[in-house]
């Protein structure tokens, strides 16, 4: 009884604070929790008239249909491989860049570099698509014109040849994200206590030694967390990169289709609600499992850096 009245009193005391969270609670419910319930569509034959509740159950048919098609393999492979390369390449490049910015002692110049290479990160993928188009369009794009001028070759129909796109997308992704990631790593390098370096300099350690023995080990926790977070989302992809940048070109689909673009196309272009929900559900479940695994791994390495 005493406990209950204490609880009541504390509820009353915190009434306003609890009410403040209400907009967020309602919003998350609509935006995140109702769609979680909506995954039952993956097990239904959805039709718009009967809605989520009324449509007939389909059992595992949607999944069978998805995994029996060639698509499931291709989109999983594409999503996985692209992300794998992105994670590895971006990590190497951005840590390298971060180590180099740290070597620049003039603050104004360092700031200038940082703001210019952050510029690609603030623009939308639509603008990126324009930039890529200005380089690659077949008739007047810069690359073809230079190919013709310098090598006398015919020029390449970039938007008609899927085989080039793995390279193009990797370059575009690095162009857009390396600046941003390197600033995150740079921030954690600045956070390192200067005393380590002073002591190392007294001991006569070279720049290289300081980098490999002090800087890298000390930013390793940030690197681990960032990488494991990226790994846990390895079946998600940047929709804009894979949809806007290739300009939704049909000919490029073999090398530009990922789970996210597949789900979008299956829903909007073919109206196949059941199968596209099934594909999205498959993606969410794998990502969920990977997050749990990644988090356990981080906890093993360093408890403090774990997500939860």
């Amino acid at each position, binding site marked *: 009884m005493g406990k209950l009245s204490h609880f009541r009193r504390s509820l009353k005391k915190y009434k306003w604070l609890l009410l403040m969270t209400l*907009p967020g609670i309602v919003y998350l419910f609509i935006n*995140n929790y109702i769609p*979680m319930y909506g995954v039952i569509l993956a097990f239904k034959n959805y039709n718009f008239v009967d809605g989520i509740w009324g449509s007939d159950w389909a059992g595992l048919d949607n999944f069978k249909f998805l995994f029996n098609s060639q698509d499931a393999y291709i989109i999983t492979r594409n999503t996985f491989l692209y992300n794998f390369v992105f994670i590895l390449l971006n990590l190497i490049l951005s840590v390298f860049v971060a180590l180099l910015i740290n*070597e620049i002692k003039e603050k104004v110049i360092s700031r200038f*570099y940082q703001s210019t*290479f952050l510029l690609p990160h603030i623009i939308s993928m*639509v*603008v990126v698509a324009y930039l890529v188009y200005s380089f690659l369009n077949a008739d*007047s794009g810069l690359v073809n014109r230079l190919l013709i001028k310098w090598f006398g070759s015919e020029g390449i129909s970039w938007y008609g040849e899927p085989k080039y796109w793995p390279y193009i997308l990797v370059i575009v992704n690095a162009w857009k994200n390396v600046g941003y990631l390197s600033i*995150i790593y740079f921030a954690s390098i600045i956070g390192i206590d200067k005393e380590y370096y002073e002591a190392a300099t007294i001991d006569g350690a070279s720049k290289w030694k300081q980098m490999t023995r002090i800087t890298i080990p000390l930013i390793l926790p940030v690197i681990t967390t960032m990488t494991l977070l990226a790994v846990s989302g390895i079946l998600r992809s940047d929709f804009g990169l894979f949809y806007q940048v290739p300009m939704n070109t049909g000919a490029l689909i073999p090398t530009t289709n990922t789970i996210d673009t597949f789900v979008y196309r299956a829903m909007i272009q073919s109206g196949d609600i059941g199968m596209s929900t099934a594909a999205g559900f498959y993606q969410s479940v794998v990502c969920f499992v990977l997050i749990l695994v990644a988090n356990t791994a981080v906890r093993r390495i360093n408890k403090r850096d774990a997500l939860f």
Partner: protein
Amino acid sequence: MKELKLTKYIGPSLIHLFFWLFTIVSLVPFILVFMVSISSEDSILQNGYSLFPSHISFSAYQFLFNDFSEIAKAYGVTILTTVVGTVVSLLITALFAYPLSRPDLPFRRTLSFYIFFTMLFGGGMVPWYITYVNMFDLKNTIMAMIIPNLLLSAFNVLLMRSFFASSIPESVIESATIDGASELKIFFSIVVPLSLPIMATIGLFNTLSYWNDWYNCMLFIDKPELYNIQYLMTKTLTNIQYLLMKSNSSAQVGDLLAKMPRETVRMALAIVGIAPLLFAYPFFQKYYISGITSGAVKG
């Protein structure tokens, strides 16, 4: 000894060289698009896109500004959604984060988990889309470009919570409570003014993502008069005709299309679309960098 001097001499200049290259790589695509937009259509047809156009002409911009209504409308939609979206999302984020930063709040752990779980699992795009279209009837409304982005990420809430917890002294809140201030008053007249750095950071993140949004417009909007600037750009990149959509008669469209400097007008639209962002960038880049930095070093 000699070698040491050499590395001392070469090292810094090599690093600067590397960063100049990096800077050029970051900027050249923008410069190219700009140069194409001020080239004459003839020089493009002859020489293709070039960083050094042989003939400069502003006819693409003239074409765009002759009938600015389509672009003005798209700008209007973008500005409206950006302003409303940023303000409301900042409010919701702060209102959720602040109570979570109070150590004695009942249900604190439950509420944290409620938001945290959304980072772990999602229903996917299709159920999300159906929720908005069928349950809330947001198709072809301005709201469809505002509501889906309101709580961009649970991460922003957690970031703000740590800021409140570490930067607002407990004693200030206590003394205000003793003076009889209500929680809402404490929040708006003490907590918010003390938290301007984090408000600016999250506000900036939200502004950028509203300004850059095309995804919600593509999903939820069919009516050309509700297109935002990013989506108008998307449509125009693949189909130049979208710029001329307001004309009802197809004969007129054909006529205009024939007169349109196609190649350059595309790039001019791209410049018109990103210009506000590029002009504002020098002013906000400082806050943007410190925002990313504060997010990286988790509190």
